[in-house]
Every structure is written in C-alpha cells, then in structure tokens.
C-alpha cells in the first residue's frame, strides 16, 4: 500500500508539522513501507483472537480520590515564555 504526497501533507498538518518538499518525499516513502508492513500483518487470520488494547497482561490500577498535589503555579509558570495574571499566554486563538 502506498500513500500520495497529499496524504503526507495532510497527516503533517494534523500533527502541526511543517514539511519541506524533500521531507515530504522521504516520508511518503517511509510511511508507505510502514503501511505495507501493516498490510502484511492484516493478512494473518485472526478469527477467534481477542482484540488487544495493551500488550501488558495487566489491568489499570486505581487511585483513591484524594487531593495529593499542592498549588505549584509559580514553578509551572516559570517555564512559560509569557504569562499574565496567573495565566499562560499563547498567540491569539479565535474559534
């Protein structure tokens, strides 16, 4: 299975990645070979096999409903390029 350049650009856009033409060529090639591998795996007969959502033979551990974390706003905001009034500032989003 192969994908075209447009697919590559779309996937890149969904992941908010900017690709050069040369990058796109390379990804088209490498993603296509990944998909070929998937295709090959899909030809295996899986009738009667339970779908697996996690390879570990374990189940989710649960946490008691207790507040264990304190306010560390100053430390968190210290990493941000711009802050104001306790908020992280980001380029204006309109939606």
């Amino acid at each position: 299975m192969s994908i075209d350049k447009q697919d590559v650009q779309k996937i890149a856009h969904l992941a908010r990645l900017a690709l050069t033409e040369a990058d796109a060529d390379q990804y088209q090639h490498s993603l296509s070979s990944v998909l070929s591998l998937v295709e090959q795996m899909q030809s295996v007969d899986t009738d009667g096999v339970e779908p697996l959502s996690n390879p570990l033979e374990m189940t989710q551990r649960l946490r008691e409903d207790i507040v264990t974390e304190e306010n560390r706003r100053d430390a968190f905001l210290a990493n941000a390029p711009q802050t104001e009034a306790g908020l992280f500032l980001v380029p204006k989003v309109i939606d």
Partner: protein
Amino acid sequence: MNWEVVIGLEIHTQLSTKSKLFSGAAVGFGAEPNTQTTLVDLGMPGALPVFNKEALRMAVMFGHAINAEIGMSSVFARKNYFYPDLPKGYQTSQMDHPIVGKGYLDVMLEDGTTSRVGITRAHLEEDAGKSLHEDFQGMTGIDLNRSSTPLLEIVSEPDIRSAKEAVAYVKMIHSIVTYLGICDGNMAEGSMRCDINLSLRPKGQKEYGTRTEIKNVNSFRFIEKAIYTEIERQADILEDGGRIIQETRLYDPEKNETRSMRSKEDANDYRYFPCPDLLPVVLTQEYVDGIKATLPELPSQKAARFQSEHGLSEYDANVLSSSRAMADFFETANTIVADAKLTANWVMGELSKLLNQEQLEIENAPVSAKAFGELLVRIKDNTINGKTAKDVLQAIWNGEGSADEIIEAKGLKQVTDTGAIEAMIQTILDANAAQVEQYRAADEDKQKKMIGFFVGQVMKASQGKANPGLVNPILTKMLKG
C-alpha cells in the same frame, strides 16, 4: 411541508470527585487560575495518568440508573486535536469500549404521556482547560484548572422528537445525577452542558436529514429556545429548496439564534487510538453488583411510591420527586403533618412561590421542613386558616420564630367559639339593618349573592380570624331571623 424534527443529545456531566480524573489535583469552580494543576494536567513529558477510583464508581452507578450494560472491560482512547487549552494534544476519552453501554430512560412529558429515549453509551473523559480571549497584550490566556476534570458524556439515540421532549429528557438526567450525588447539577457553572444534534425530515420519511450540532448549551431554557430557532432555520432553508450543511453551530441567547462556528475542514479527524499510558479497566461482577446495591431510590421510583404510599396524583408525585431535596423536604414535613395532599399543595404552591421570588433552591430555604410541617399542622387543626397561614409562613421565613410562637405573638388564632362568632354577627346585623331587610325580602338566588357582603363584614370585624367554615352556617341561620 410538514417536518419532523429528529434530536439526539450529548450531555457532559462533571462528576463530583474531590480530585481529577487522572491526577491528584483538586477539582473546584472559581479557584485562582492555574492553581489546581499538576504535571499530568499540563501534559508534561513523562507524567503519567492514574485513574480515579471514585470516577469509576460514579460512572458505574449512573449505568445502573439507566438500566445499561456495564462495560466489564473498558478502554481509554486518545482523541487527538490541537488547541492551546489542551496541552497534551489529545483528550483522554473512551471510544470502542465505554464504561456504560446501551441503556434507556422513560421520560414523562407535560401532557402526561411517557416516551422512551434510548441511551447509546456513556463514557468517561477528561475536560480541557479554559481559553480566555480578553485582551492580554493581544494574546490568549490559558487557565488549566479545569484540565483533567472528570466528565461523564451521556450520548442519547436520535429518539427525541420535540424541544419539550428534549428538555424533559435533560431534566430527568439532571435529576438522576443529582439524586445519585455524582454531579452537583450546577448548569450555570458548567457542571452540565449539552450538545444538540438536530435534523429535519418530511413527516413519514425514514431516512434522517443532514444534521447540525449545537455545542455547549447550558440551561434548560436555552436548550428549548436553541432547538426552536434551529428548527426554524433549517425549515426555512429546506423550504427554499436549499441544503443543510453538516456543521457545528453555537447558540447565542442574546440574539436567540444559532450561528456557524468557523471550523476547519478536517477538524473532526480525531484519529482515536487506545491510550498506551492507561491499561484496560477490568471490573468484577462482584464490584458491579456491589455498586448496584448502593443505588438510592431514583426519581421515578420515588414518584411511584408517592402515589402508592401517600395517594398523591401522578402530577404532584412527579413534581415533588424531580429534585431529591424537594422530595426530602416534602417527606420530612409530612411525617409531622400526616396529610400528604395538604403538604404537597403547600410545598408546590406557597413555598415554591417564595423560593422563586427569592431565587433560592429548596435546600437553602430559610424555613426548615420541620418548621414548615408545624405550620401546616395548625391549618389542619383549624387553628388558623389558609390565608393567615401565608402570613405566618412569611414570618417564619423572615426568622420571626416558629409557627406557634408567631400565631401566639400576633394573636392570629382562628375564632372557633360559636358564641363569640354569634355575638360578632349580631353586632353586624344590627349595624346593617337596611341590608338585612333587603336580604329577607329577596328570593333565594339573590340571597346567595347577597350573603357575601355579610361574610365580608364578619371577616373584617374578626381581622380574618373567624373560621369561615363556622361563619357561613351561623350567618345563614341568623339572617333568616
């Protein structure tokens, strides 16, 4: 053209846990921005989520309340999209294996009929943060306190056929989650938000029309109004031969219209996949049954009991059981009054009127159920009449004391001494000799109309305290002469 509206609802209910769905940060409305966040909520690399036990219990409880299949092995999935208030780049949600599967609710409509609304699923997911678009140096401010707050998203089948039915369904969900104590139900603070999927089709047609989705409507009234205005908009387009575009819309309560949210063409390409940071949540039958045993009496069960045990009408029983606080108030008061109809009338009438006036919920009423019951006892035993009782209720409301204290202090006790009433009537008859003459000369029909004058005089003379049940027969007898 005769159009049929088809509605499906997605209701996001915020679960009342103390801590977040996947972290130990506090959950709460109105805290200072970004003071209730952790590395997990901020999406820091390497920070791993751990699932909150209580959120699981609440979801399973809801599943039981809507007669649903419980997902014995449920899986968290990543819903991928980019937005600054979602720093991880994905929302942890559930896709193929939700915690609550197919269920249903029987919804009572205003005309007394019941309709069954199917519930497709209810899944656990985390909320995103908040974007504040006020001017911060021309930038957007991000508050991540709400990030990872636990939500249960309840998805209905497209079974709803009118705005009224939609509101009745949402009210019922509201009443169930508050009965269960799994959501505070505060719609103004966003604890319950509703997305409305709506399409029209010609009556009799089987296929659904193209639908639109109205996002984040957060009051019963707005849900109803948004549906009416969207039906009108779609009908106008269809009748002009146009086509409905499948899109997300916003309801603007001020203009009472829905408008298109500008959305990118691939905005809905969420690329769900199982979350590798979280393992499958596997439940035992023992756990699921154990939760079922803790279910409180639900609104519909309570309504049925109010009818069978207290002899209330279906309407009264439904109104009283719609909120757990009101139902408890009614039952507590009625243990003192022991007259369910009287108690029901006064809770739904005078008390509700005062609550509306002051815009208070019954749990915050300044009159306790006990004080209220003691007042109604005084109506029941004829100490005071209904009219006086309204004044006494107002006085209790204002903190002037108990019913008995107020009745005593203000001398409101109804006059039930027949001798005293006779004497009062005699004085009035003497003072109004001319009217008495006219009355005696009139025929029976006219007399019935004229007696009101004398009753009025007696009530006035007694300052409303004469027992009307006694005044009427005595007066009639004495007027005969």
